[in-house]
Structure formats: C-alpha cells, structure tokens
C-alpha cells in the first residue's frame, strides 16, 4: 500500500498580518495606533517622501488633534517628475502614527496597496458618514467597514476595496454592506456584493446566473469567480446543483464551480465529480479524482482556512468506502495517471447505485 504524505513549504508564509501594511479592517484596527477620517487639500510628492496636512473629521481609534502634519518616507513607484506639488482635495481613512522623539510630523502607513503610491496611503472616506452607516455599539473593525463602504460609495471607487477588507468584521456587518452593494444599480457593486455574500449566505449563489449576463465582460468579474471557487462551501444538495448549473456559464465559471464542488466533495456531488473523470481536460480529471478520493477517504472540506496548513489533506480514512486502495489512489498534484483514473472510474461503477440513493 502506498501512503501519501503532503507537506507545506510556504517559506514562512504567516497566517497573521505583517506589521507594516494592512489590508483588512481587522489589520487596521489592530496595527494602527491612530485611525482617523481626514481631508487633505494638497501634498508635496517626491521620489523619497510625501508630505501633507490633514484636517481630521473623525478619530476612530486613539487620539489626534484637529489638524496634523504628515510626512511619509517612501520610494515612489512609476515614472514622474522628481518633485511635484499636487493640489487636490481628498477625504480618506488614514492609519496614523503620532510624532516620536525625532520628528514633529505624524507618519501615515499605507493600507490600500504597495508603498510608493499616494493612492495606497488611505482608504476612500466621507467627511460626513451617511446615516445608513451610522451604526453604533459595534466593534472597531465593523465601524471601519462601514466607513470604508461609505467612502467607496461616495467616490464610486472600486467596491472590491471594501469587500476585500471585510476580514475581522462580524458577518452581520458584512451582510449589511454586501446587501447594499447588491441593491446598487452599478453591476460592479452588485458583483462585489455577491462575492462577499456567497461565503456567508449560501442562498446568494442562486443570484449569480441571473446577474452573469450583465457582468460577464466586467474585468471585476474575477472577484466573484474567485469567491465561488475558493470560498463557497455549502454542502447542501441544492447548492451543489446550483454550482453544476454555473459550470455551463463560461470556462472560468466552470473552473470555479468544479473547484468548489470537488472541495466540498459530499455524496450529492459525486455524480458530477465522476463525470469529470472522462473529461478531455486533465485539470478537470484531476479535480474529479481529488473530489472522489477525498469523499472515499473522509477528508475535510477544503476551505481557505485549511489551504495553508494543508489540513484538508489529513484524512481519517475511516469511512464506509475507505479501503487500502482508496488511500493508495488518493489524489496527487498534476495530471492523474491513467491507472488512477481507471481506479476511480471502476470505483464509481461499483458504488454508484448505493451512492445515488436519496439521502
């Protein structure tokens, strides 16, 4: 019998945010000493530094005076004149560090992209928070999500900025923001809202096919496709059926649906997974083998939380269909051998009658 062992070599990939830059509301709430909504009217932007004055509207964490002078050393990206004074009013949500012994200036920490770009220095904000987002008695991470969502709406900015930052906020707050985005008339907001809803509100998957015609050519559709591929893990037969239907929408949606179904690998998913074994695409064959062998060997559902640890490959092998052969023919990376594919075709042939009984 061959037993497979899988190890992760992510070269020190951390499960925790790196101090220095933060992308999620959880990161910003944790890492930043001071978080404030503030307006800048101009900045001096050079290859090695950017400096500007901030008029503070609201302090969300820590304390700050009404006006702060900010100086941030950077190595500027892109190609532009050496030093430029930019006069432009912008309201942002800023991650601020108070002055220290060596300077009277505050520093601002990039929270919205790589250092060296002013667009990375803050999230979009609003001088006055709309009433709909004035929700009190929630954790700071949730308040930050509401402020960010309001800023994104006010500027018509990329809604993926808010949706990509939801980690750490309560599901109820994410749902509130996502439902507002879904109700928008802007297809990019609709797809971003759906991308956020799908992992926490499985019924949202039924809205994807209806929305697809209006977003199938949007560059932002990847946000939704990726959310389905990597995060939608509802095991109900209805959700499996919805994913099977999505597989016919487009090649990229097919890839996402196949990845999701094989990651869930419940009994209801087996007929579809078995059909992948005869696909002409080796990647689809591989996911078919992965799903069937994960079911037979009682492996956990593959989720974003267990990808880095590879815990989804730690299988008890103690189910009614677990045998020495199902372990020996467990999925491996790469193109499955014809021997492995034949094994799972035969396995399905032998077990499908029992496995397709109503559950």
């Amino acid at each position: 019998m061959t037993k497979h062992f899988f190890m992760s070599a992510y070269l020190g990939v951390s499960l925790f945010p790196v101090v220095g830059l933060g992308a999620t509301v959880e990161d910003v709430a944790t890492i930043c000493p001071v978080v404030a909504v503030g307006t800048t009217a101009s900045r001096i932007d050079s290859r090695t530094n950017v400096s500007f004055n901030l008029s503070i509207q609201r302090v969300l964490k820590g304390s700050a005076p009404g006006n702060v002078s900010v100086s941030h050393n950077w190595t500027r990206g892109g190609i532009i004149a050496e030093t430029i004074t930019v006069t432009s009013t912008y309201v942002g949500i800023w991650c601020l560090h108070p002055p220290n012994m060596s300077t009277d200036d505050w520093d601002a920490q990039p929270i919205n992209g790589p250092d060296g770009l002013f667009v990375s220095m803050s999230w979009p904000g609003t001088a006055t928070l709309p009433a709909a987002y004035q929700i009190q008695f929630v954790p700071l991470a949730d308040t930050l999500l509401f402020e960010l969502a309001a800023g994104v709406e006010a500027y018509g900015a990329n809604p993926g900025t808010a949706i990509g930052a939801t980690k750490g906020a309560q599901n109820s707050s994410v749902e509130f923001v996502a439902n507002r985005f879904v109700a928008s008339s802007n297809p990019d907001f609709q797809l971003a809202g759906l991308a956020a809803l799908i992992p926490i509100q499985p019924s949202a998957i039924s809205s994807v096919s209806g929305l697809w015609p209006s977003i199938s050519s949007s560059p932002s559709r990847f946000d939704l496709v990726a959310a389905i591929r990597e995060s939608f893990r509802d095991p109900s037969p209805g959700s499996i059926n919805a994913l099977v239907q999505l597989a016919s929408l487009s090649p990229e949606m097919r890839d996402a649906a196949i990845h999701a179904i094989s990651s869930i690998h419940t009994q209801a998913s087996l007929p579809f997974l078995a059909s992948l074994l005869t696909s002409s695409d080796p990647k689809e064959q591989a996911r078919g083998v992965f799903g069937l062998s994960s079911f037979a060997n009682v492996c956990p559902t593959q989720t974003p939380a267990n990808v880095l640890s590879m815990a989804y490959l730690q299988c008890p092998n103690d189910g009614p269909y677990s045998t020495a052969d199902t372990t020996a023919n467990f999925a491996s990376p790469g193109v499955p051998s014809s021997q492995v594919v034949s094994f799972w075709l035969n396995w399905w042939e032998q077990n499908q009658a029992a496995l397709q009984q109503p559950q």
Partner: protein
Amino acid sequence: MPPGNYNISVVVTWDGVQSAPFPIFINMPYANYVVNKGQWCSSPGSCDCNAANFYPGQNLTGYVTLWNVYTEDLFGNYLTQVGTNEVLFNQLFLGTGGWTSPPFSNPAQSTWATTEWNSNYTFPDYYWICWSGPLYPPLTSSGSGGPEVFSETQNYYIGNSTTNGYGLCTQANAVELYTNNGSQSNTQPPAYPATVCANRTTLNTKP
C-alpha cells in the same frame, strides 16, 4: 498542470526491518496568473494620471495600467494575502526623444504585504508614467498600439518577506512600458522561474 512528482521518498528501518517507501510531496506557491484590468480609474471618468489620489489637475499626460496578480499553489488553490515582493533589473529606456535617464528615474521595486487584495485573491501592480515635458514618441493617456519606450525584467517572489528578492519566485517576465500602456510579456512557464530568477536571467530587450 504542475508536476506530480514527489520530492522525497522515505524508507524507515526498525529492528532491521525496512518499510515500504513513503513518498512525501512538498506543496508550495507555484505560479502567478494575471487578470489584466487595463486602464486604472479611481471612479468612472477619473482615470490615469487624473485619477483621484494620483495627480489630478496637474496637467500631466500619461497613463496608469493596473494588472491584478493571483498566486496558486501546486494543488491549484488560490493563496490569500501572502507577503509578496518583486525584483526589477536591466531597466532600459528608449534613449532618444527625451526617453532617457535622466530626466526619468527607473521605476522602483515594490513590496506587497497584506495590501490591497481585491476580494482577497489578487494584489495590484501598477505600471504608470505621468509627465508634462516634451517627449518623442509622445506620451498619451491609456490606449493600445503605442511604441515601446522602456523595458525591464521583473521577478515576483511569494513568501512572508517584504525584502525584495526573498521568498519563492513564482513568476519571471519582461515589463514593457509603451507610450500609452504598460504590460507584461515573455512570461516564463510556471515551473521555470526558480531557475531563471536565481540566475537573474534577463527577459527584456532594449526598446
């Protein structure tokens, strides 16, 4: 598809009895893929150098091209919010018509910790030029088909380090800046970058 070979085969001997071989496979970040989102706009109608928080109202000509990059492991899973950095080298300007260094400075290397990951799975790479002086061929806002004015070799490294050049190299390619857009080209097959990055192989040529 990534290679299916195992990295290590372990045989255990206990009291002189040898076990069957245990094949051990080491998973790791394997490849980058790019979703080309093209012209960058902070909001509809506010694009390129005039986008909010770029250089609005400065009478600068030029473009901002955004490429979103995602990373898969050997099992084809997307990685989320992983520390990333890049190394840029063999940076070459056209050398005529003002496209020289100086007055231009070479684009700086970036690092991405847990920065802006759109819905968690991609990190943004901006290619941009904003300028007001005379140039030939002339710089314009975003478009296609313009002549190339700058090139460099770009290597992406995935890992937890924000020190440029540390981590696992998952993509090696050339960057080509044209008068109206920036793009990646000559991207090496996924299994190739470890060698090409270690050797600092140049993948670009002078425009």
